[in-house]
C-alpha cells in the first residue's frame, strides 16, 4: 500500500463483500433449496434461510433410482473415473512428448510440434459430428475409452512441460550423461522428480477439466451405465415433462455434483493458481 486512506479501505472492503456475495448468491440459493421439502419451493417466495430437510434430500438423491438416469453412485464413479483417467493420461502423454521435443533432435521434430500445436485450434465444439463418427467407427461409443481417450491429447500440458524442461539447467543432463545415465534413467531419476510441483499443479486443473465435461459425454454415451454426474443433473433438471420439477432434489444433486472440484480449488488454492497461470503462459 502506498499511503493510508481509511475511507478508501472501507470502500475496498465494501466492494469486495458485495462481490463475494454476488459470486456466492446462486450457490447459496441452491444450498438453501436443497435443505427444504418440495412444498416450500413451489411458490415464488422461496425461503431465504435453511430448512431441515437436507439429509432427507441427499439420501433421496443418492439412494432413489430415477427414470432416465443412472444411480447416483454410478454417475459419481463415472465422473471420478473420467476425471482421473483424463488427468493421468494427459499428463503421461504430454510429459513424454515434451521430453522428446526438448531433449532429442530428431528428424520431424518441428512437424510433431506443429501437429500438437494445431490441437489448440480445434476444440471439440467445432468438430462435433466427424469426431463422433470416428469414435463410433472405432466402436468406442458407450465405453470409458470413448469418454476419455479423445480428450487426452493436450497441447497446453505439452507446452507447460516443454517450458519447464527448458528452465532445467543443461548441466544436470550433461552430468547424468557423464555418469553413464541413458535417456530413460535421466527422465525417471532426475527430470520426473524435478517436475513434481508442475505435475501436481497441472493435475488440479486437469481434474477439474475432466470433472466438468458435458458435451463430450453427452455425445458418446447413450447407455445410462456410462452417464456422468454433469449429464445426470442436467437430465434431472430437464425432466420436468410431468409436473413441476422437484427442485429440492435437483438442487441437492447439483450441490453434490459441484462439491468435489470446488473443494479442490478451495483447499489446494496455491496449486490451482499455479496450474492455471502456468498453463496459459
Amino acid at each position: 500500500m502506498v499511503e493510508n486512506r481509511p475511507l478508501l479501505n472501507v470502500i475496498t472492503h465494501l466492494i469486495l463483500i458485495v462481490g463475494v456475495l454476488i459470486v456466492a448468491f446462486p450457490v447459496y440459493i441452491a444450498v438453501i433449496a436443497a435443505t427444504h421439502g418440495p412444498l416450500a419451493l413451489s411458490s415464488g417466495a422461496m425461503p431465504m434461510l435453511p430448512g431441515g430437510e437436507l439429509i432427507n434430500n441427499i439420501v433421496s438423491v443418492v439412494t432413489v433410482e430415477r427414470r432416465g438416469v443412472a444411480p447416483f453412485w454410478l454417475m459419481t464413479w463415472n465422473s471420478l473415473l473420467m476425471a482421473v483417467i483424463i488427468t493421468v493420461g494427459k499428463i503421461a502423454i504430454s510429459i513424454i512428448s515434451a521430453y522428446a521435443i526438448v531433449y532429442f533432435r530428431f528428424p520431424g521434430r518441428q512437424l510433431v510440434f506443429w501437429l500438437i500445436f494445431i490441437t489448440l485450434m480445434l476444440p471439440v465444439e467445432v468438430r462435433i459430428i466427424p469426431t463422433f463418427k470416428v469414435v463410433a467407427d472405432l466402436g468406442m461409443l458407450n465405453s470409458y475409452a470413448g469418454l476419455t481417450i479423445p480428450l487426452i491429447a493436450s497441447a497446453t500440458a505439452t507446452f507447460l512441460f516443454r517450458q519447464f524442461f527448458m528452465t532445467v539447467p543443461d548441466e544436470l543432463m550433461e552430468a547424468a550423461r557423464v555418469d553413464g545415465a541413458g535417456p530413460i534413467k535421466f527422465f525417471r531419476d532426475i527430470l520426473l522428480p524435478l517436475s513434481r510441483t508442475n505435475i501436481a499443479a497441472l493435475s488440479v486443473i486437469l481434474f477439474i477439466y475432466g470433472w466438468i465435461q458435458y458435451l463430450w459425454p453427452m455425445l458418446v454415451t447413450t447407455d445410462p451405465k456410462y452417464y456422468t454426474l454433469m449429464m445426470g443433473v442436467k437430465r434431472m433438471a430437464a425432466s420436468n415433462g410431468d409436473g413441476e420439477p422437484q427442485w429440492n432434489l435437483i438442487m441437492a444433486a447439483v450441490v453434490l455434483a459441484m462439491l468435489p472440484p470446488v473443494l479442490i480449488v478451495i483447499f489446494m488454492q496455491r496449486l490451482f493458481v499455479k496450474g492455471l497461470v502456468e498453463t496459459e503462459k
Partner: protein
Amino acid sequence: METKRTTFPNSPLPYILVAPQLIITLIFFIWPAGQAVKSSFEREDPFGLSTTFVGLLHYSRLFADPDYLAAIGRTAVFALAVTIISMGLALILAACVNRLIRSGTAYSTMLLWPYAVSPVVAGILWWFIFNSSTGILPYVLSYFGVDWNHQLNGNQAMILIIIAASWKQISYNFLFFLAGLQSVPQSLSEAAAIDSAGPWKRFWTIVFPLLSPTTFFLMIVNLNYTMFDTFGIVDATTAGGPNQATNTLVYKVYSDGYIGLNIGSSSAQSVVLMLFVIGLTIIQFRYVERRVQY
C-alpha cells in the same frame, strides 16, 4: 525452435515418446477436422449412399441464410457482453484485493471457486433462480413491474445466458488481473503518489496501462470462452430458444448437425468456426507471447 545445448543421441526412442500424443491427435483432432472440411464441400444423398462434390454451395447458402447471419450477430452481442461484464467486475475486484495486505487471500479464495463449477451446472443454477414459476428473481422483479419469462421473451433469455456465462468467468479473469496487478512494481505507484497523484489517477495513468498485456490476453481468452465453452450454459438454460433467440454459433453447429442431421451445413459452420479459432490463436501467439516485461 530451441532444444537443449546437448541432446541425447538419436534413436527410435523420441518417436516412441511422441507416438501416443501424436496418434491421438491425428485420429481424434486432425482427421475429424479434415472430414469436416471435406464434407462441407459435399452433399450426401438422403440415403447416405453417395456423395457429390458441390463446391462452395453450403457456404454460399450459409451466408445467404438470414438465420445464420442473425446467429453471428447474436453471438457477437453475447461474446462482447460477457467479456465486458466479467472482465470489468473482475478488474474492480482484483484492484480491491491488490490494495489489501492481510485479508486479500481470504477474499481471493471466496472469489476463485466458481472456476470449478461446470458450465452446465452454472446454467442450471441460474435457470432455477430465473425460473418464471418458482424462481426468486422473477418474484423480486415482479415488484418492479418486470414480467420475467425467459421461456417466451428472447431478450430476457439472452440476458439470462449473459449473466450465467459472466458469473462463471469472473474468477478466471480475477485471477489473471490479480497476477497482473501484483507484477506492477510498487515503486511506480509510490513515485506517482509523491507527485501527489491520488489512487484513482494512479490506477488509470500508471497501473491500467501497464496491465494492458493482461487485458489483451484476457480479451482473447474470453472471446474463446464465450464462443465455445458456453455450450453447457446454453443447453441447460434455454437450449437455443425461445424462437432461436439464444442460438449461438456453437449451439447451432450442434443443433443443425447432431439433432437436425444437416451434415453439409453443419460442417460448413464448423469450418467457419475453425477459421475463427485459428485467427484468435494466431493473434494470441503473435501478440500476447511478447508480453511486456516490466
